[in-house]
């Protein structure tokens, strides 16, 4: 693993992300990662609180229209997240918390897909009301995004090795 870290961290692209004085290197990538976080976690929270009973006059089938923006935020963060990982592979991959963050995001994504399938795309959801599993999924979604944000923030405080070079 150490050889892989050394190889990746000495590639010009990794070095550019990590060491370039350009504002478009690390600062821009990190900023986009924060904006994307607000979009994906925030829009997901908006759908979740609606499912849990806030703003009952909003048709759930129409909440689907915000899907495209939610997934845009997600993919923005998948891409910027990979770039941050290319810049600091040792820092992330030697920290157990990084794997917990990834697991939390994986659960949140699976839950989001289940919410879309079982609640938002359910043709009768606005007539029959939200099924109990829908409310459970919404609560899990809120918890996972909050925990993923906490894990992500704590990565800056809990790493043991910054780089292998």
């Amino acid at each position, binding site marked *: 693993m150490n050889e892989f870290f050394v190889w990746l961290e000495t590639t010009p692209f990794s070095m550019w992300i990590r060491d370039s004085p350009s504002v478009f290197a690390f*600062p821009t990538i990190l900023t986009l990662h*924060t904006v994307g976080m*607000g*979009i994906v976690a925030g829009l997901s929270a908006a759908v979740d*609180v609606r499912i849990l009973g806030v703003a009952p*006059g909003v048709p759930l089938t129409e909440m689907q229209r915000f899907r495209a923006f939610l997934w845009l935020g997600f993919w923005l963060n998948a891409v910027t997240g990979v770039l941050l990982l290319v810049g600091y592979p040792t820092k992330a991959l030697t920290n157990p918390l990084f794997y917990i963050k990834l697991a939390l995001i994986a659960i949140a994504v699976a839950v989001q897909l289940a919410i879309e399938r079982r609640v938002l795309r359910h043709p009768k959801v606005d007539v029959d009301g939200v099924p109990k599993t829908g409310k459970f999924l919404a609560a899990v979604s809120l918890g996972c995004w909050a925990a993923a944000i906490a894990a992500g923030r704590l990565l*800056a405080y809990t790493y043991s090795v910054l780089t292998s070079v």
Partner: protein
Amino acid sequence: MAPFQVWLVTTMRDIKIVSPFMHAPYGWAACETLHFIGLSLLIGMIGTFDLRLLGVARRVPIAALHKLIPWGIAGYLINVTTGVMFLITEPEQYIFNPSFHFKLLFMALAGVNVAAFYLTLFGKVKALGSGADAPRAAKIVAGVSLTSWTAVIVCGRMLAFTRPFNCGPAGAGFLATCFPHG
């Protein structure tokens, strides 16, 4: 402005209520986490409302969607609270930081924008039911809101990359972006 900034820093440094918590292990990190969760709530709830004004999910009645706004305000209040905690713990890192000056500017723009919306447009806009398009003025307000809140996040993130250093012989200038006492 520089003498006023120095006065602000010394005054804030004397407020020592939150300092022990912020310097405790993970105190600062806990506040940052809350600040990020508040940011997400604000962007998620306010952004959803702005997108509806701009024409997304037009079948959603505006008054019904507006019930999400208190959750966005909750996010805003979390962030004002945690933001003030950062500020009074390390005042010189913010008061002399150009990113912080721009962040305040965009927060003020977002504030004026939201005040203008509720004072002039909200009465008409909240009556818009399912399928109704928002007037052009409301779309402009929504665009300004999305842009200014995004700019607030960008400036907040840039704080770490524009940290002030000691001012050189040229001095602090009108608005100090360096430590004048250095």
